[in-house]
C-alpha cells in the first residue's frame, strides 16, 4: 500500500477531526491532498507528534484527534506509547505509517525492517485497541472502526518506502501553528454559542 493512497482513503473523514502529523513525507503528502486549518504538521521534534496529540486529546475531550505518526518517529518516543496507554484518551486515534525506513534522510532501514513489531509494542504498552494492516481496504475499514470505537486506538499501516520528491511546501510553520490554534479556539466558541 502507498501512504498517499491510504491518506486519500481517509481524507474525507479527517474534515471534522483535529490532525497532527509528523514531518517529511507524511506532512507533504497530506498537504498535497489539500491543507485544512485543522491540520498541524510537526516539522521537527521527532517522536513528539503523539505527545502533542495526547495533550490536545486530554485538553479537549470533545474533539476527535488523529495523529499521523511514522515508524522512525515512534521509535524515538516508545515511552510515549506507555503514556498514551496510561491515560487512554478515547478521542485519540494514533496511526503509524510503517515504511521500515527513514525515508526523508536517505531511506536507511529502521528496526521495523529487522523485525521490531510496533503493533506488538503498542499492545504490550497497554494501548487498548491495536490493529496492524497491510492493504488499503483493511486500512480504511480499521480507521472507520476506530472512529466509532470511542477508545484509544493505535493503527499500524505497513506502507511502501516511497514518497514525494520534495518535502518543502509553501505553508510556513508559524502560519500553520497560529491557524491551527485559531481553529481550535473557534471550534470551541462555536460550540458554546450553539448551546
Amino acid at each position, binding site marked *: 500500500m502507498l501512504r498517499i493512497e491510504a491518506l486519500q482513503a481517509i481524507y474525507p473523514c479527517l474534515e471534522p477531526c483535529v490532525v497532527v502529523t509528523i514531518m517529511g513525507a507524511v506532512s507533504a503528502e497530506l498537504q498535497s491532498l489539500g491543507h485544512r486549518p485543522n491540520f498541524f504538521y510537526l516539522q*521537527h*521534534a521527532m517522536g*513528539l507528534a503523539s*505527545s502533542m496529540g*495526547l*495533550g490536545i486529546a486530554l485538553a479537549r475531550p470533545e474533539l476527535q484527534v488523529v495523529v499521523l505518526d511514522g515508524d522512525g518517529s515512534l521509535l524515538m*518516543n516508545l515511552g510515549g506509547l506507555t*503514556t498514551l496507554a496510561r491515560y487512554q484518551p478515547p478521542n485519540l486515534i494514533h496511526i503509524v505509517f510503517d515504511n521500515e525506513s527513514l525515508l526523508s534522510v536517505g531511506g536507511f532501514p529502521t528496526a521495523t525492517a529487522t523485525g521490531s513489531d510496533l503493533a506488538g509494542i503498542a499492545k504490550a504498552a497497554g494501548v487498548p485497541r491495536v490493529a496492524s494492516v497491510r492493504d488499503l481496504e483493511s486500512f480504511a475499514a480499521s480507521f472507520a472502526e476506530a472512529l466509532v470505537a470511542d477508545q484509544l486506538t493505535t493503527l499500524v499501516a505497513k506502507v511502501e518506502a516511497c514518497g514525494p520528491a520534495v518535502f518543502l511546501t509553501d505553508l510556513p510553520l508559524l502560519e500553520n501553528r497560529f491557524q491551527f490554534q485559531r481553529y*481550535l*479556539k473557534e471550534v470551541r466558541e462555536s460550540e458554546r454559542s450553539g448551546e
Partner: protein
Amino acid sequence: MPVSLSNSRLIYDSLKACNIRLLSALPETWLVHLIRLAEEDPEVSLVRLAKEEEGVGISAGAHLAGVKSAMLMQNHGFLASINGIVSLAHLYKIPLLMLISYRGEFGERDPWQTQGGGVTESLLRSLGIPYKFLEQPDQVGPRIHRAQALAEAALKPVALLLCRDLMWVE
C-alpha cells in the same frame, strides 16, 4: 522525607492561581508533594511521563487547544527535553512554564546529581530561556505569576529553578 510540604503547597497554590489545569511530571524527590497534590486535585490533570521530553509535546498540544499547563521536572529532565524545547517550543513559538528542581547545587550530597547541577544555568542561558530562582517562600507566588505572563507574552519557554533552600528542610 524532609521535603517542605508547606512550600510545595505554596508552589501548587500559585500554579492553580495562574489557572494551570494540566501538569506533566516525572517523579523526583523534591517534587513528591507537588505530584501528590496534583494527583489528589480533581481540577488538575496530572500526566505522568516516561521521559520529560514528552511533556514538551503535551504542553504544546494543551496550549494550542487552549489549556494552561506547566511541567515539573528535575534538571536532568530538562537536559533530556532539550531537543523538544528547541525543535518544538522554540521553532513553533510555544509558551512553556517549566518548574525545574535544581539538584546538584551547593549543599548537594548525592554525587550523581552534581554534573547536571553544574551545567543547568549555562544551558538555560545558551538556549535563551529566561529563568529565576525560587529560593524563599515570598518569591513563589509573584515569580510563578510573572514567569507565566512572560511565557505567554513572548511565546517561549520560561524556567523557574526550585532551589534547595525552598524545597528541602534539613
